[in-house]
């Protein structure tokens, strides 16, 4: 409903144009303020922290005001691309870096921030160094890392493990041995929101790393010919299908979505024993699982090694940070406000504290004391250690790749999990789209 009767009537009735535009979800340079706009994701608790940072900045800068607009995750991914393509990008573009950022850069849509970071070394020095990789395209920095570090973690339900009388897996063989034990007790070994596609992808990310090392997927990103057909890749793909065949995932996983958090609920209600999910899941389970997290029933670990694999078991994958870019199409004044926000608005003390209260680790360095003082201290320390000690922090595949191969990859992963294509078919389908 782009232009409904009601919007037209609204315009006719003299509703301020900016309000009417906002109603269509296409905020332009509205109000009389600086016209600096910032779009980001909604959904609590993250939305509140983002909004709080903007509010604090606006309060401190009476002449530099930022207008913020929020969108739902999947809708945002489409919306931001469309807006940038139409030349109506917000001044501050929130994103995940990696492949999508690369497409913005190629199209000349975002500012090169390399020299700005050179002039403001103090901004760069405050942040986790590993977070800059996904902000860098061909040696230049096009985004400022912000918010939190989100490695993928293997969560488990301690109560269920006690009930069945087993211990957390130390290797892939342990995982495969646990599967029949849980199934025999009527508990699903792993929860999975398979309809969301990227949820399945997390499994392959770890298996590729543990079996073939980070070079295996790096070859894909660099567009090496037939990278997906590497013997180690085929081994990883085969292992996933073995787990599916052994009923490792909950019945009906391909119709469960992650947006409804039904997959998390399966873990904290004890219907599933384990779950592979991002670090953000902790906050959700804390908020929704009642007594589950406070009682210490939630266990967590890094993904275990695979026997004979080449990857370092300390490696991780996930989101090294979130990212803020500045639209190259914005006016000089807007750009200045945006840069001031990057320098003095992002990850200030109050924001850092709020992220920690929500159970996540901000990418600012030197927060160990705050983390230790938090009610989620153990989990936060665990996440911080993974993020800072991992030799390689691989970026989530769907963000690391550019959109075209990423979409093909997600479609094919679902088919792989459904056992409707073989590992070899998977590899050849993807070689066809990522070989260029």
């Amino acid at each position, binding site marked *: 409903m782009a232009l409904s009767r009601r919007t037209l009537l609204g315009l006719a009735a003299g509703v301020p144009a900016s309000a009417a535009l906002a109603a269509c979800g296409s905020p332009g340079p509205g109000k009389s303020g600086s016209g600096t706009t910032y779009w980001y994701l909604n959904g609590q608790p993250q939305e509140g922290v983002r909004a709080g940072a903007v509010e604090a900045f606006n309060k401190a800068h009476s002449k530099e005001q930022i207008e913020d607009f929020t969108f739902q995750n999947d809708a945002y991914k489409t919306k931001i691309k469309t807006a940038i*393509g139409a030349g109506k990008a917000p001044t501050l573009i929130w994103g995940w870096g990696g492949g999508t950022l690369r497409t913005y850069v190629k*199209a000349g*849509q975002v500012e090169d921030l390399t020299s700005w970071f050179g002039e403001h070394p103090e901004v760069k020095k405050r942040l986790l160094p590993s977070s800059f990789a996904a902000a860098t395209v061909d040696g230049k920095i096009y985004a400022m890392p912000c918010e939190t570090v989100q490695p993928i973690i293997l969560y488990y339900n301690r109560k269920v493990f006690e009930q069945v009388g087993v211990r957390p897996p130390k290797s892939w063989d342990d995982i495969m041995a646990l599967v029949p034990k849980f199934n025999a007790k009527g508990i699903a070994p792993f929860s999975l929101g398979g*309809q969301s596609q990227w949820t399945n992808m997390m499994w392959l990310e770890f298996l590729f790393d543990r079996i073939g090392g980070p070079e295996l997927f790096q070859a894909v990103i660099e567009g090496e010919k037939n990278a997906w057909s590497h013997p180690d890749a085929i081994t990883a793909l085969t292992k996933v299908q073995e787990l599916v065949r052994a009923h490792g995932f909950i*019945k009906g996983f391909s119709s469960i979505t992650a947006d409804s958090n*039904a997959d998390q609920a399966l873990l904290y209600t004890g219907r599933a024993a384990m779950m592979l999910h991002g670090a953000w899941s902790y906050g959700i389970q804390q908020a929704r699982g009642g007594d589950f997290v406070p009682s210490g029933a939630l266990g967590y670990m890094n993904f275990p090694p695979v026997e004979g694999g080449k990857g370092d078991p300390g490696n991780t994958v996930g989101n090294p940070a979130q990212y803020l870019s500045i639209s190259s199409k914005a006016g000089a004044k807007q750009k200045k406000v945006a840069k001031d926000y990057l320098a003095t608005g992002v990850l200030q003390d109050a924001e850092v504290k709020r992220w920690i209260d929500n159970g996540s680790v901000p990418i600012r360095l030197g927060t160990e004391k705050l983390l230790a003082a938090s009610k989620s201290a153990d989990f936060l320390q665990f996440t911080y250690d993974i993020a800072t000690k991992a030799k390689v922090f691989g970026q989530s595949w769907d963000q690391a790749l550019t959109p*075209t191969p990423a979409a*093909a990859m997600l*479609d094919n992963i679902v088919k792989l999990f459904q056992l409707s294509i073989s590992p070899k078919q998977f590899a050849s389908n993807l070689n066809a789209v990522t070989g260029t």
Partner: protein
Amino acid sequence: MRSPAGRPPRRAPRSILPWLAVPALVVFVGFAVIPLVGVFALSFTTWDGIGAIHLSGTASWRAVLTDPGLPHALRVTFLVMAVSWAVQTPLSILLGTFMAGRQRYRAVLGVVYFIPLMLSSAAIALAYKALLDPNFGLGAGLRIEVLSQDWLGRPGLAFGLVVFVVSWQFIPFHSLIYQGGVQQIPKSLYEAAQLDGAGRIRQFFGITLPQLKYTVITSSTLMVVGSLTFFDLIFILTEGGPGDATRVLALDMYKRGFRASLMGPASAIAVILVLVGLALALLLRRLGGRDAGASQLEGA
């Protein structure tokens, strides 16, 4: 169109009449013709939706036409169309005929039946999705094993479910059309049939159904052409999954365009959708016969 008595109406001088169409024309050109031309032009380009648009000749068309995904999406689209037509039409005719009766309770039921149509497709899809969740849905809640199937996770079930939900949403609308159609049938036909001793069922097949011929064509045209645009419901319910079991053409277009950033091929699919829709609409008009416009009413 001639006015009934054959003379031009007095109030509006003839010269003004064409101008009255201008607002509608502006909207039609602005929101239908220009985008259509734009999409046609885009189908001959390469564009990721963000950067520059490059002319690339027939590359997008060749990519789409040689993609094994296209025949699959077409098959699914036509299957959804055919099966949901076959499910909706008889049920709508029966419901419409039933509601055409005069008793007061039927009016109340008519309103109740109409409710699904008033809900947005997105709300319907979300509600069904929650109800059918194998772990937290209706089946699990009521502990009825049969209901806690992996409804959206198995290709056959997911397809059947899409048809079911579509039918649930649109049967009310088509029932309404049929109700109107039935009420137009002259009473005298039924009186004559009763004198000849025809029962209700004979009357239905002998009078109601044949008299509804043109209503069937109207309703079928709406169903068939409308089914090409099924998007929101399927998008939320299954996202075209599991795998691509319910990936209809409209969804295929969206996924290529906005997920995979392939605007050229997505535009080609959009053009194909328009052509298929036009062809179907024309075909159905043909089926209606040349006298489709003529009235079937007694004495008119």
